């Protein structure tokens, strides 16, 4: 397992490790300090005890020496030898007695302070004794003890007089102050002992010690005047004890090392450190185990989320661990399942058309791209078909979206039944479908298109109704008509529109279509200029009262005289104007021009009601009323001389809006007329609500009125209906007198058509009107 500093496990382990190490470290430190303090106190006490032992031992030694030398001094033979200065005897007795108590120095000094004998310095016999002060004390006290230096060595000495029975000499015994004495002292006191001496203020020299030469040197350097003091030398504490001396300075130094004082602790310390190390190890292991209980499941969960991130929802996470963790894992699994379900749903929504359950545009595009790549590599071909239903909008508008949806579903079913499984059928949106035929040439695609047309010619039954749905299909093939998806789709689309315009079912893309389209685009931009440059004009076709024969009004029709192309028929530019919305601008211009003409006629004393065609787009234009109002005002024209004509199908496309708009138009006094009545599947319920004054029967009924009794019946009932609703009835497309006569018999109010006059410009209309008035006057007269 890799150690990462930021991993939970490492943090947990580190936290407990550091905490424990800190606590134990502090405990150890405190213990160490306490122990050092204790050791210090202990050493001081030890030194104090040592000092007492030392003093006691010194006293005992002094006592022993004194006793021994006193015994010697009272020995009769010795006294006699001294009295007689029998040197040989004196010396032998001295050695004998000295050996008894293991004295190191024996001396006999005369009363006049001359050396009689001195075992430490045999050559000094006859010379003056070097320690007169010792004798002075002995003279005063009867005895003298103390430390003396001689020949670089120190002795603890005791001096007493040799009494015979009065003093005849001084006898002195001495014990060497040396390593042996130091060792004895250490045995008793458990302290290290060293003796240092100096004469005449020279440097201190070690006389005897149980400590190393190095330490002796350090102590010797640290020593100053002989006074009781404690020296602290690194690890050692040394108690300096000045000794009673003569003619020189001697100190005893008792020392104890912290090392020794701390020794018991050291053992404990080692044990504690072992305990610390052990507990740290246990801490690490325990922390790792506990952390793993958390981090292992976390790693498993993390691994699972990584898989989910990569889109793999299949594997559930398996986690055993503490309750919290397994609960979390359970939740993760639920989340994973929920995400998987939702993603499936989202994918379906993203790539499926929910209505038809066919692939949608996105999926179709994807498949098309993939198919193109495959075809490119394999050198094969493929084709794209785009199909748009004819008259679907009518079905939707007339029967409602619900019915429209059912129609779309049935169309989808028929399409999928027709194509191979390797092909893709998609609904691109609205009533537009697309097919991707792999390994299919344009001819094959064309025949598939024909099959589809044939299939859709069979009526579709939706509930109680049977509907006819046609379709237009455009075909584009790879690689002939495009090498990428967008181009192919665009071209298939263009072909489809061509088919729709031509109403010929299936059209294979042809590069010329493209040109036509571009021509339309340029036409549109020219149309914009047409208004500015005054290329549009109006022609007027009169309406004539059938019974009286007089002209009752005119229908204004827009004409475009292109400067280079000449006359452009309305069906060439009005549909495109409608598609682009530019028709509103045209309508505004027409209303204004019509109002101007109506005002001109009014002021000339020959008033006429002018009707203007408006499209369904105009009905959706909230500014229409303003445009109307502005035109009437600008030309001071009473509203009654203006009438709007709207086709029945236009009304039915959005009946509610049409009802509302016509109501408002009526409110300002402008008249309204339903055009092309009889073709728009209108419901009588709507007609009833429309605020209109006039109904214009479509020319398709009028054309065959004389020959077809059914049309005659339809026209008759329409006229009756309109009259019953209080509307004026106008027949359009009247081309002969027989028809006019029949209409008159049927009770139609007015007529319009080539039988009366074709559309004329204003001037020509004036001429026509003048000649007709003259003709009527002559016929009457």
């Amino acid at each position, binding site marked *: 397992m890799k150690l990462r500093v930021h991993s939970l496990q490492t943090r947990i382990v580190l936290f407990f490790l550091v905490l424990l190490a800190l606590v134990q470290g502090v405990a150890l430190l405190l213990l160490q300090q306490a122990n050092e303090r204790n050791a210090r106190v202990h050493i001081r006490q030890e030194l104090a005890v040592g000092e007492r032992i030392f003093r006691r031992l010194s006293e005992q030694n002094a006592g022993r020496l004194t006793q021994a030398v006193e015994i010697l001094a*009272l020995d*009769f033979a010795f*006294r*006699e030898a001294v*009295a*007689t200065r029998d040197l040989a005897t004196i010396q032998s007795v001295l050695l004998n007695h000295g050996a008894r108590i293991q004295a190191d120095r024996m001396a006999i000094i005369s009363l006049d302070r001359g050396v009689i004998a001195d075992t430490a310095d045999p050559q000094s016999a006859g010379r003056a004794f070097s320690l007169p002060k010792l004798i002075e004390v002995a*003279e*005063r006290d*009867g005895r003298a003890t103390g430390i003396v230096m001689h020949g670089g060595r120190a002795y603890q000495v005791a001096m007493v*007089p040799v*009494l*015979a*029975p*009065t*003093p*005849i000499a001084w006898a002195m015994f001495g014990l060497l102050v040396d390593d042996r004495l130091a060792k004895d002292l250490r045995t008793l006191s458990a302290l290290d002992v060293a003796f240092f001496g100096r004469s005449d203020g020279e440097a201190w020299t070690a006389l005897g010690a149980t400590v190393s030469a190095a330490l002796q040197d350090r102590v010797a350097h640290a020593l100053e005047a002989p006074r009781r003091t404690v020296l602290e030398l690194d690890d050692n504490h040394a108690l300096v004890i000045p000794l009673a001396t003569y003619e020189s300075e001697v100190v005893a130094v008792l020392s104890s090392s912290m090392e020794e004082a701390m020794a018991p602790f050291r053992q404990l310390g080692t044990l504690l450190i072992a305990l610390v190390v052990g507990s740290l190890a246990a801490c690490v292991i325990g922390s790792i185990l506990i952390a793993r209980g958390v981090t292992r499941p976390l790693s498993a969960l993390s691994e699972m989320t990584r898989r989910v991130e990569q889109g793999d929802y299949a594997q559930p996470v398996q986690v055993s661990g503490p309750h919290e963790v397994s609960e979390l894992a359970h939740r993760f699994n639920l989340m994973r399942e929920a995400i998987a379900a939702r993603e499936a749903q989202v994918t379906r929504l993203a790539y499926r058309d929910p209505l038809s359950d066919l692939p949608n545009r996105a999926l179709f595009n994807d498949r098309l791209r993939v198919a193109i790549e495959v075809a490119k590599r394999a050198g094969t071909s493929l084709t794209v078909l785009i199909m748009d239903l004819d008259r679907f909008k009518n079905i939707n508008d007339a029967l409602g979206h619900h019915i429209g949806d059912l129609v779309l579903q049935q169309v989808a079913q028929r399409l999928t039944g027709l194509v191979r499984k390797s092909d893709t059928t998609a609904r691109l949106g609205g009533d537009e479908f697309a097919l991707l035929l792999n390994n299919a040439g344009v001819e094959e695609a064309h025949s598939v298109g024909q099959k589809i047309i044939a299939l859709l010619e069979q009526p579709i039954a939706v509930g109680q109704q049977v509907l006819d749905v046609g379709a237009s299909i455009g075909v584009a093939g790879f690689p002939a008509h495009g090498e990428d998806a967008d181009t192919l789709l665009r071209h298939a689309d263009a072909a489809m529109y061509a088919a729709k315009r031509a109403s010929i079912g299936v059209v294979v893309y042809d590069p010329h279509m493209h040109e036509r389209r571009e021509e339309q685009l340029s036409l549109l931009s020219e149309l914009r200029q047409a208004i500015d440059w005054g290329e549009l004009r109006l022609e007027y076709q009169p309406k004539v009262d059938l019974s009286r024969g007089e002209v009752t009004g005119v229908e204004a029709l827009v004409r475009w005289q292109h400067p280079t192309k000449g006359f452009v028929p309305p069906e060439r530019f009005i549909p495109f104007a409608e598609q682009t919305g530019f028709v509103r601008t045209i309508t505004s211009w027409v209303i204004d021009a019509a109002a101007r003409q109506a005002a001109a006629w009014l002021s000339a004393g020959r008033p006429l009601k002018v009707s203007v065609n408006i499209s369904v787009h105009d009905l959706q234009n909230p500014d229409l009323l303003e445009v109307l109002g502005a035109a009437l005002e600008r030309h001071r024209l009473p509203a009654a001389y203006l009438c709007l004509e709207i086709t029945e199908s236009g009304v039915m496309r959005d009946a509610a809006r049409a009802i509302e708009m016509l109501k408002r138009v009526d409110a300002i006094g402008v008249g309204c007329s339903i055009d092309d009545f009889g073709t728009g599947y209108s419901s009588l319920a709507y007609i009833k609500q429309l605020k209109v004054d006039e109904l214009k029967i479509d020319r398709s009924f009028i054309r065959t009125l004389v020959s077809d009794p059914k049309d005659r019946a339809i026209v008759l009932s329409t006229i009756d209906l309109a009259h019953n609703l209080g509307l004026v009835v106008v027949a359009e497309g009247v081309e002969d007198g027989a028809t006019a006569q029949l209409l008159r018999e049927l009770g139609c109010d007015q007529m319009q058509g080539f039988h009366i006059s074709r559309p004329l410009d204003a001037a020509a209309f004036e001429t026509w009107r003048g000649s007709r008035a003259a003709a009527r006057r002559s016929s009457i007269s």
Partner: protein
Amino acid sequence: MSLAVLLLLAVVHAACAADLEVLVQNDRAQPVAEAVVIAAPDGAPPKPARAKLEQVEQIDQEFVPRVKAVLVGSAVSFPNHDSVRHHVYSFSPAKRFDLPLYVGTPANPVVFDKAGVVTIGCNIHDWMVGYIYVSESPYYATTDAHGRAKLAGLPAGAYTVRVWHPQLAQPEESTRRRAELTEPAFMEWQISLKPEVRVRRAPAPRGSGGRY
């Protein structure tokens, strides 16, 4: 008895003799007892006086008297009145002797035939110290507790008078004085003494001191 004879002789001689009274004091003008005062006549000593038998007794483990002046040539016996034995000895140059352990009086007295100070001790009882001053002159006396002494019957003439004491801190010569004695005279000394160095007396065994 013999002392009376001597005194008589002195009185006879007194027509031409004088008494010398002496006071010895220490530095602090306190009387010094047991000081020996010796008057040595100029010229040849008079006819040698007859030596006498002197005594230094041991009573209660002490020498009695502690200081005893004797004429040179005198014999001194050391009777022991104690129940314990004594072993009297001297390592002094003037007279070296020792009387091995004895009870009562030793058979032979010790003859002091040389002038000088003889310090005597007992080898058994270290604290016992005694002094025998062996004088070449027959004119000597020992001061009493009041520091006084009297040298009687000194023939008129010139003398050198000196003082000795066991603890004398100065040379004996420094105490010498000249004196022309024709009639009773009085002399006074102030001497400096050093402390006595003496072995501490051992405690008496039970019953031993019952006699006194």
